[in-house]
């Protein structure tokens, strides 16, 4: 039986031992290093590299350095290792990596999960890790048998010598193998020999997730632990002026109330007491400079900005507005999308055990190095004195990769004030109102057509907060005043247009913003793919055919678009009142087209009946994971398109829980059909790219069904009903 070890004492003890005896055994251990003498002499079984641990009892543990938040890395990454290692898949265990440079992201220089990069970035490294391990096990067996290693093979956890029908298990070989030097360069299998990659392997973490045993951050318990709920300022940037904790302290179970940077923490022996205590706190807040903020005012400011020239992100050919003046036909439209909360099913939480010379943290995070270092700064410790355990994540969607490590920093502050192990749990309301939202965006976009209906000019002005400016990633992701994540999917539109201008305004608002599943693409795909549809109709052309003509040089876009159109039966007779829309978008290395079939009720409610999704994500590792992530991205994007909005009034977030920030429910689930294109290209991402095309596909379908163009998300029934009455 496979299993996930979430919080493993063995691993920790081993690491401690490793650090003591080897210094560099795991820490800083790279694949080309040879094992240190100390490691060879230790009782530790076979650890060919930081990712594999083979016990003398035949257990094979893969140490996974990417966080499992639903996207399936605790299965897909072991698949990469095991394609080469050839251990018995049914005996594989998976363990979350500790924080260590050996586990840094191959491109980021820190340990973390995001950008739909797990498989893409680990593809080569993990296959090499597996191949190295296998080569050493084979060398160990060959040495025992005194045969040529080339005459041995590995299969399902055994090294086999066919000529003499001898075999030894990996466990039997572990000790011997651990005495060998890892080979410097091991050739990898050819694709034709793949046994695991390309097959739909069942997720290794399912059993624990259906019997109550899976441990998420919120589930970790340690002796003497208290639970805290923090009252946050009602307005971002607000501060505590004064507070009375008399009533809170009278709540049975409440142990103490402490003021911290981010608010007032009520600490109790149970969550319920802490929450009751927090509810009865009387805090006087200094609400700060955002106390008058409202979404309506912001919209006016953004709309005004959208008419002014911004910082140029892309310019090709002549200035479009000069072309537009002379165009046979020109179209201008304004689009708007709101702030969005990640709303992971598991609210944010973090458990901290802070001692004089150490700090131990348990949390579901996507940003290990960042969080550990931030915790060390708050605790006044060195990073190596902080041990961070990554649990399973009850959803991440980017929220658990916070550049400020907000939910970790806050918990360390509470632990520091309380001097006891404490788990801070965010109530759903705290989580919903706590910020780090997908930014609100406002776009003005114009296009010009010549007499023949050819698209000759495109001018897209984007207005919205930068999520990168002011973070440690500014140097990497902000170039010439352009936050790349603000314009991704807009500045790189694939359509062949001779005159293009994309410019950007990044107003500083002070609302905490962050990457939200598919980041900038979550907004740009909606605007670009809706507007292309508008332009197609203005040109009197079929929106699918119109796109095709502009994509003749873009084979992968075209491939996905054609497949989606074909599988959806583009142009077929639909039931009365139904409409079909299509959109194609590339993000995170994958090309995806989606065709949505919808109907609209008289009350203006959009019902999505079916979504056909075609994806070209390069080489396929786990087909069923790709399908699952497309289904997931579509639902995530639909929730946002139909319902999602965080709005402000008097500086306050107006939403608080799932009644006013609804997400899609079972009865609204469309039939989703996913078609994967075979490809020899390097792997693309799948966690995020399913999200961007769905909103425009649905909006285009609504237009097809009703003749009404939705340029504002979410698709409010009232607005649609009003428009339908006018039509």
């Amino acid at each position, binding site marked *: 039986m496979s299993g996930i070890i979430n919080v493993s004492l063995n691993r920790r003890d081993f690491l401690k031992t490793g650090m003591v005896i080897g210094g560099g055994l795991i820490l800083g251990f790279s694949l080309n290093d040879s094992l240190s003498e100390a490691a060879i002499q230790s009782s530790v079984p076979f650890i060919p590299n930081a990712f594999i641990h083979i016990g003398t009892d035949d257990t094979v543990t893969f140490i996974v350095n990417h966080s499992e938040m639903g996207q399936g890395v605790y299965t897909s990454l072991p698949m990469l290792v095991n394609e080469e290692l050839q251990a018995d898949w049914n005996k594989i265990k998976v363990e979350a990596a500790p924080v260590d440079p050996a586990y840094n992201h191959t491109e980021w220089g820190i340990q973390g999960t995001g950008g739909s990069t797990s498989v893409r970035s680990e593809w080569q490294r993990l296959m090499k890790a597996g191949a190295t391990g296998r080569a050493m096990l084979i060398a160990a067996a060959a040495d025992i048998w005194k045969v040529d290693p080339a005459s041995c093979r590995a299969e399902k956890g055994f090294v086999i010598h066919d000529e003499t029908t001898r075999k030894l298990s990996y466990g039997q070989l572990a000790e011997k193998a651990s005495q060998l030097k890892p080979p410097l360069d091991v050739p990898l299998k050819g694709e034709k020999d793949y046994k695991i990659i390309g097959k739909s392997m069942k997720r290794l973490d399912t059993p624990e997730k259906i019997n109550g045993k899976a441990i998420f951050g919120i589930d970790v318990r340690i002796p003497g632990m208290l639970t805290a709920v923090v009252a946050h300022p009602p307005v971002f940037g607000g501060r505590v002026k004064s507070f009375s904790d008399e009533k809170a302290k009278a709540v049975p179970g409440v142990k103490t109330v402490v003021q911290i940077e981010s608010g007032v923490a009520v600490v109790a022996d*149970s969550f319920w007491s802490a929450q009751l205590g927090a509810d009865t706190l009387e805090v006087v807040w200094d609400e700060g400079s955002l106390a008058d903020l409202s979404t309506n005012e912001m919209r006016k400011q953004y709309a005004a900005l959208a008419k002014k020239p911004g910082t140029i992100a892309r310019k090709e050919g002549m200035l479009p507005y000069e072309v537009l003046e002379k165009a046979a036909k020109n179209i201008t439209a304004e689009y708007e999308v709101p702030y969005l909360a990640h709303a992971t099913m598991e609210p944010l939480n973090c458990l901290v055990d802070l001692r004089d010379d150490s700090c131990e943290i348990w949390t579901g995070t996507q940003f290990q190095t960042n969080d550990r270092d931030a915790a060390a700064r708050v605790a006044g410790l060195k990073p190596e004195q902080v041990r961070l355990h990554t649990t399973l994540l009850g959803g991440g969607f980017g929220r658990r990769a916070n550049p400020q490590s907000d939910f970790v920093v806050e918990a360390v502050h509470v632990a520091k004030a309380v001097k006891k192990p404490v788990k801070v749990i965010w109530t759903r309301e705290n989580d919903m109102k706590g910020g780090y939202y997908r930014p609100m965006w406002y776009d003005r976009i114009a296009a010009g057509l010549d007499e023949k209906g050819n698209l000759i000019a495109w001018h897209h002005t984007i207005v919205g907060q930068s999520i990168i400016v002011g973070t440690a990633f500014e140097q990497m992701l902000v170039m010439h005043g352009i936050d790349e994540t603000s314009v991704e999917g807009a500045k790189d539109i694939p359509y062949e247009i001779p005159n293009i201008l994309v410019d950007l305004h990044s107003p500083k608002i002070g609302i905490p913003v962050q990457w939200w599943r598919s980041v900038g693409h979550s907004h740009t795909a909606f605007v670009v793919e809706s507007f292309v549809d508008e332009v197609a109709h203005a040109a009197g052309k079929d929106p699918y055919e119109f796109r095709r003509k502009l994509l003749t040089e873009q084979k992968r876009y075209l491939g996905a678009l054609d497949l989606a159109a074909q599988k959806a039966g583009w142009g077929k007779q639909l039931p009365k009142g139904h409409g079909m829309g299509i959109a194609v978008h590339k993000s995170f290395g994958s090309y995806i087209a989606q065709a949505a079939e919808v109907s609209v009720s008289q009350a203006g409610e959009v019902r999505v009946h079916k979504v056909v999704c075609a994806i070209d994500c390069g080489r396929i590792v786990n087909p069923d994971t790709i399908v699952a992530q497309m289904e997931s991205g579509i639902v995530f994007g639909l929730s946002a398109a139909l319902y999602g909005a965080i709005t402000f009034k008097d500086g306050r977030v107006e939403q608080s*829980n799932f009644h006013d920030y609804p997400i899609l429910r079972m009865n609204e689930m469309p039939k989703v059909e996913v078609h994967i294109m075979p490809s020899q290209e390097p792997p693309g991402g799948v966690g995020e790219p399913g999200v961007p095309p769905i909103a425009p596909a649905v909006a285009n379908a609504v237009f097809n069904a009703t003749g009404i163009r939705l340029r504002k998300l979410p698709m409010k029934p009232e607005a649609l009903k009003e428009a339908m009455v006018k039509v």
Partner: protein
Amino acid sequence: MISLEVNKKKFEVDVSSETPLLWVIREAIGLTGTKYGCGRALCGACTVHVDGEPVRSCITPVSSAAGKKITTIEGLSADLSHPLQKAWIEEDVPQCGYCHSGQLMQAAALLKKNPEPRDADIDNVMSGNLCRCGTYQRIRKAIHRAAEMMSGGGKE
């Protein structure tokens, strides 16, 4: 002291009578499979059975469950032998997994009452259980599959 019977075991818990059953199960008894999602019966992550009926434990005062038979996800089956668990594995349903304790308990209650649910029945009963990862299509398939397993030989 309040007496509870959870997964056929008896517990005496020292909590105030209005404490939600969810937190008693998670903190006092220590069974963390039942999840907190919203605290207001909006998401279904906390679903358990009380005398066989699915309830949202986050808004159920512990006192109202005293003396009744409470079943949590840990009590659905010890060895993954419940047809729903088997179907969940076969359809590879969970992603992040956080909501699935609640999904399974809700689905188990559905199948007990209605061993052959149609899609509309599933919609009616399962729409109170949110899944942010969007596994609804698989949940639906898995419920049908479990129903087939049960009709073709009952619970194994």
